């Protein structure tokens, strides 16, 4: 079974005195390296250019050579 621990994320409320000096800050706590990586992966978007490039590349894809088509 995969090593799993509950993902811990907590919002830490700054005390009233701190609120005046700094804005509310969020501390994320991760139990394992895998949790950090999962969180990071979710935040990471694939650039739109990848799909566009793929489409262009597939349209440009050369036809099979005549002898391959002929031989089947």
């Amino acid at each position: 079974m995969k090593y799993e621990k509950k993902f811990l994320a907590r919002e830490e409320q700054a005390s009233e005195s701190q609120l005046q000096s700094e804005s509310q800050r969020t501390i994320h706590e991760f139990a394992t390296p895998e949790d950090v990586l999962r969180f990071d992966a979710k935040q990471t978007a694939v650039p739109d250019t990848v799909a566009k490039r793929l489409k262009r590349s597939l349209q440009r894809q050369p036809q099979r050579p005549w002898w391959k088509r002929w031989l089947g």
Partner: protein
Amino acid sequence: MDKPVEQTLAQAPPDLASEELSALYQENSREIYYLTLRLLGDPQRAEDATHDVFIRAFRKWNEFRGESSPRAWLYRIAINYCSNLRQSWHNRNVFATEDEILEKNAPAVTASPLRVLEIKELGGRIQKALDGLSEEYRLLLLLVADKELSYEEVASLTDQTPDAVRGKLHRARKAFTLLFQKDTEP
């Protein structure tokens, strides 16, 4: 006169608009991009890698026998791609020594959680920690982080037994935690 259907199909290039390939891309592109991003450490190279991995996958899609999940199959293509790029004497030898040092200095139990205050800096800190690991440890952590992969699939992708994966993973976690905390804590 129209071409016979078989001939048309044989000549037709794989089409991203086709439902099957489109689904393959939609369901796996984030994971493939993330793996290549963290293995190569560069967004532009990761973009190129993701593009090339899917081109290869689409061209070989007819040969995919379903012996593994499509995700694992794509990971294999991506791992081979990245390892071809990264393969050098330096990569294969220098990091092994670093692992030994890290294991020696690692705390016995990494009980304290990994704390992050600024999410926008998280990617950079993760990359820095991963870059300090050997290629093997880095790959293991990244693969195990994908909940869709079983230990058996991770073992198969890294050419070792599931037991070996478990053992190495324990050391990889310790090494990553040490590097990550070193960079995080004041």
